[in-house]
């Protein structure tokens, strides 16, 4: 089975998931992003790498933050950007995903940034576009959100450069989280020796240990001596029901407070993909505290997305 993300020379053709990408390519993306961090600090925040190219943000699921950072990233690379919010309910009645994509291809889009509520949607689109068009997955169902995983790695590398000596804990709703899956694959591919997941059994997928993680159900035990704490967002609709009794009970057992964070290493950092539910999965004092790197994550997210777009559009390793 061919890896749909790589071309016949092993170069990145689409970015669909972290899984299946070699360490070399992940590092190449991270290194390329390094060169884009500075662009934002210039007076003219633009480089001409994607001049004349059209990037199409195709969002079948609502998102403000991710869409905005992709837009900014594309604009800083001098691309023309179209953002479409395709209402999924009206879509199911009429135009199929492929109809939508085909129409945009007819308008000469060069790159698609796709978000969809179904796992596999980005793979599906990538399979049907012509060779010269690139697809970036901006989140598909529970499956993957590779640029989020990469920007998390970029952030961790900034604060903890030696990935081979880290203990990382991922806390919260792993079951429904494409972010968690991307983080797990990125961490294990980049050689982080110990990755833990901490959650109640209702929020963990079957055989999660086969992804190469250690499973903890107790937050205190799981946080002990970790270098990095990666929090996950808990969706509102999952706070009350058969998965969890209440957001209050969740916060009590799995919410990250300073007291619990103190069980980790003293210099441990805290990440969160946003948007946060303060007082549900994370206490405000931690979110805004000295160990939080949540805002730098957002900044680095733009550099990562610029790097991915530049690599896809300009062959490999576009340098600023």
């Amino acid at each position: 089975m061919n890896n749909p993300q790589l071309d016949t020379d092993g170069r990145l053709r689409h970015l669909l998931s972290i899984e299946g990408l070699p360490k070399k390519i992940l590092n190449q993306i991270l290194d390329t992003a390094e060169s884009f961090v500075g662009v934002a600090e210039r007076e003219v925040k633009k480089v001409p790498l994607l001049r004349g190219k059209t990037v199409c943000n195709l969002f079948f699921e609502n998102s403000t933050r991710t869409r905005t950072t992709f837009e900014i990233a594309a604009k800083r690379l001098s691309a023309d950007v179209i953002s479409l919010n395709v209402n999924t309910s009206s879509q199911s009645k009429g135009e199929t995903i492929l109809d939508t994509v085909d129409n945009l291809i007819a308008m000469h889009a060069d790159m698609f940034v796709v978000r969809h509520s179904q796992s596999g949607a980005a793979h599906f689109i990538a399979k049907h576009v012509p060779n010269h068009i690139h697809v970036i997955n901006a989140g598909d169902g529970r499956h993957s959100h590779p640029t989020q995983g990469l920007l998390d790695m970029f952030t961790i590398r900034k604060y903890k450069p030696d990935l081979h000596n880290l203990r990382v804990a991922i806390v919260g709703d792993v079951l429904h989280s494409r972010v968690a899956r991307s983080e797990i694959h990125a961490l294990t591919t980049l050689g982080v020796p110990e990755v833990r997941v901490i959650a109640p059994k209702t929020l963990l997928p079957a055989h999660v240990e086969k992804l190469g993680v250690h499973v903890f159900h107790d937050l205190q035990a799981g946080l002990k001596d970790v270098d990095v704490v990666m929090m996950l967002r808990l969706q509102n609709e999952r706070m009350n029901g058969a998965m969890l009794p209440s957001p209050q009970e969740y916060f009590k057992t799995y919410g990250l407070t300073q007291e619990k964070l103190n069980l980790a290493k003293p210099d441990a950092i805290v990440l969160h993909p946003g948007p946060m539910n303060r007082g549900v999965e994370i206490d405000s004092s931690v979110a805004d505290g000295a160990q939080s790197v949540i805002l730098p994550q957002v900044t680095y997210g733009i550099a990562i997305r610029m790097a991915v777009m530049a690599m896809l559009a300009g062959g490999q390793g576009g340098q600023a």
Partner: protein
Amino acid sequence: MKIQIKNGRVIDPKNNIDRQQDMYIVAGKIVSLGAAPDGFVANQIIDASGLIVSPGLVDLSARLREPGNEYKATLESELQAAVAGGITSLACQPDTNPVLDEPGLVEMLKHRTKQLHLARVYPLGALTRQLQGKELAEMGALRDAGCVGYSQANIAITDTQVLWRAMEYAATFGFTLFLHAEEPFLAKGGVAHDGEVASRLGLKGIPSAAEALALASILRIAKETGARVHISRLSTAEGVEMIRTAKKQNGNISCDVSANQLHLTEHDIAYFDTNCHLKPPLRSQRDKDALSAGLKDGTINAICSDHTPVDNDDKLAPFAEAEIGATGLELLLALTLKWAKQEKIEITSAIARISTNAAKILGIPAGDLSVNSQADICIFDANEYWKVEPSVLTSQGKNTPFIGLEIAGKVKTTLVNGLVVYQA
């Protein structure tokens, strides 16, 4: 019409025949094997040198899509596919539109399929009205119209009292129920086996326990009521074990596996291949091994095609949104032979699982080559390889996980009622 099939290797699992001999057919019936009857002059001679002459195959579960879904398939397209696959009798599921819960619909279906002079169609009537699992359909009237059993297709009866009554009523008249075991609450929203692959791909899983729970209810109620129950499309190792145990205490239980589950696992989904979106889901290697072992030791009586033609457009969607099903009629023989080769099973014994055994479960006069039986015959080359491609499939449904596979077992000639209905 008098036909002589000469020089073929005749296999008939029911009568334990496997030898090269000629077959003589007169007016739709097999009249002799070996020596020609007195005064026999053939109108047609079929040379079966190097080929196997077997009973026409019998499929326990196919969807023909008529009435209601003619854009997916028609009776004509699918019955042509059946005979191209050597299948001369098949049971069809009642989940058409409208649902097969009215005798008039069954009569119409029987009438129309008869006129096509292709494979014989044995409808499974709806067990409950509209398949809603609440009120029994008119089982007696459906039987009189031509139904050979009753099914809920893929829809479970959640109310155990209804299931109990359905079995009691069926047991009263000796009717057979064809049930697919899947507990619907545990399976809700699931699209793949709740295992490693679904976890990795972020697909909602259907746990193996969904099959075990449903089986526990069905087998227990079957025992209490004495109903004859056939479990359709078993998918888990635990399910095989439960059937094995149940059969020791209850002679009224039988069971089949689909050719898909016999050969594929969750790993075949690879990068979201929607052709692998099936019901039941493709499960783990361990489950597949147990199904194969169960089929070998007779716990599982038969292999079905689970033929479910799907329009191409309906597969062009993200995995969970793609329609369930795969075409299968033309693959049943080759996939059965492939299994037999892997498991080192005699060809006669393998063919029994798609002819004699299936006919017995349906209670129909088919699946053997006895003298005086109806001449439904499949002549095939067990060693000829062909490549599974949309262009070579007769079925209107072109979707199957086996696309691209080179596979041995090519049907050359199919006869129904003593007439050639397919010729390669």
